[in-house]
């Protein structure tokens, strides 16, 4: 099968790959580039475990064709910690016991990051709405909501 070149920025680094046409971004990230933080839970856009940030917007990488990402800037949970220092959202998830099996966690954190980037002081309703596309089958939603609210509070304290 003819290969298609794709080139994008992933967590600040330039990436270029030849892929089969029709390859999803999820497959390209996991199997080609080796960033396995986005997870494949349903491959049909319903569980949110594959969530990544493309040009500042939350996207389901299992429904995004890699070849449509040429020139894009992509962020995943792998790139969130800077210089070994955890992002406030990561700290909040740790402190609030917001992980159980952990499979939904990278997608949850991506969804939460887009929310806080766009709405630094979200209400509880904002958080629930922002996470509504991400399924946690361990049903640990309440600690996750609390973690996001707590990260927002610590962000605004740091800014003040």
């Amino acid at each position, binding site marked *: 099968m003819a290969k298609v070149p794709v080139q994008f920025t992933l967590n600040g680094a330039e990436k270029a790959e030849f892929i089969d046409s029709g390859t999803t971004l999820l497959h390209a990230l996991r199997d080609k580039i080796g960033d396995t933080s986005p997870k494949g839970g349903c491959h049909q856009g319903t569980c949110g475990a594959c969530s990544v940030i493309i040009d500042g917007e939350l996207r389901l990488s299992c429904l995004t064709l890699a070849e449509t990402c040429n020139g894009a800037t992509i962020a995943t949970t792998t790139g969130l910690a800077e210089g070994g220092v955890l992002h406030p959202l990561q700290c909040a*998830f740790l402190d609030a016991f917001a992980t159980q099996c952990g499979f939904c966690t990278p997608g949850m954190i991506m969804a939460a990051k887009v929310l806080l980037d766009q709405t630094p002081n979200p209400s509880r309703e904002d958080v629930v709405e922002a996470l509504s596309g991400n399924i946690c089958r361990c049903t640990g939603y309440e600690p996750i909501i609390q973690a996001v609210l707590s990260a927002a509070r610590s962000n605004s304290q740091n800014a003040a």
Partner: protein
Amino acid sequence: MELRKSYFADQRKDDLHEIGQPRPRSDSPGHVTGKTAYFADRNFPGMLHLKMVRSPHHHARIRSIDTSEAEKHPGVVKVLTAKDVPHNVYTILILIQIGPEDETVLADGKVRWKGEAVVAVLAETERAAQEAAARVKVDYEVLPAVFDMDEALKPGAPIVNEYHGRNYYLYDSGECRKVRFGDVEAGFTGADHVLEQTYQSSPIEHAPTETTGCIVAPEGNGRFTCYTNTQAMFFTLDNASIILQMPGNKLHFVGGTVGGGFGGKVDVIVEPIAILGAKTTGRPVCFIYSREEEMQISSPRAAEKVVIKDGVMNDGRIVARKVTGYTDAGAYSRHSPYGAQKGAGHYPGPYTIPNVWIDTYCVYTNRTPSSAMRGFGVTIGDFALEVQMDKLARLIGMDPLEFRFINAYRDGDIKAHRQPTEGAALIECMQEASRAANWPVAEKFMAMSSYAKGV
């Protein structure tokens, strides 16, 4: 939340200093950084993908299987059928002497539920495996199927599983697990009221976010490393060893990181066939359920039917309880004979009743095999028991919580299965629940204790 250290203080040697103290989870840093390695977070050069051809029928004889077109499909490396599996008929709990072996790794001559694995196709890509699987031709003769436990137990019902020869599991105690305590019929005769009710549940799918699967890599030393999300490493290792007729030292299982299981990943389904694929091709093999397979193929919690008959006195004492429980195993045993047995031990619930009769049946039907899920064997029973308790309380015009205090088991009480009660805390839990829910009960119940008789 408040921790009441006053309860059972004289029975404890420590000061509970760890309880109520937050301790970081050791796996959380991996989760929040995306570094936790689930089985599928591995990629081996030359890895093949395995897809199953599954039965479209609930019950059918297999007249013939034609894999020739699938084998010719571009990218296909290997096609496996029943004859390729060294020990094709197995049952998970044979390791603890719960037989007979009753389930095929790949169907041989017959399918007993819709979705049963018939042929395994290994190909260079997931897509090629999927396309080739669709080209396997299986000629079926459809047989009458039975989906309901009552129907399955009727004389003349279609036999679901010939390895059992009857549509129920034969325990050493006979057609069901039995508990006999006191004289239940005399209890009903002397009771002020008798209430019989039937409770039923449907199968429940765990739906973990990470689907069931494994990756197997052949090693240079003749061993096979199996990266798996099983919840039952040793059951899987031992059953794979039996199915593949391969000594355990040839198999290296790596796991423990599970993206949600809830009991749904304790069956031994994907690993043996993936190891066989790796052995026959010499290449790494990935077998991972699609979301559709996870929902339709992986075993759910069993459907259950529970018939409870109680004799109760106007003063609140339950004097007789008869329970007949039915567990729908689906087409194969897996963990269900054990689940039904657990139910027998669990009834009559956390209550002290002088006359008890329990029968629990493990029934075979042409439904998806059921298996473990969070408290399987007792959870549906508890739902039935507690609804029954509310109905009994209403029947005699008593507060439902006070009714439970009257019947609660306490240390020293002999349970129906004849083990003495030890370490009971039901009364104390109900006292706390009474306070927390602002559901007051009479002072005498708040003064009761699980280990001091006298009220």
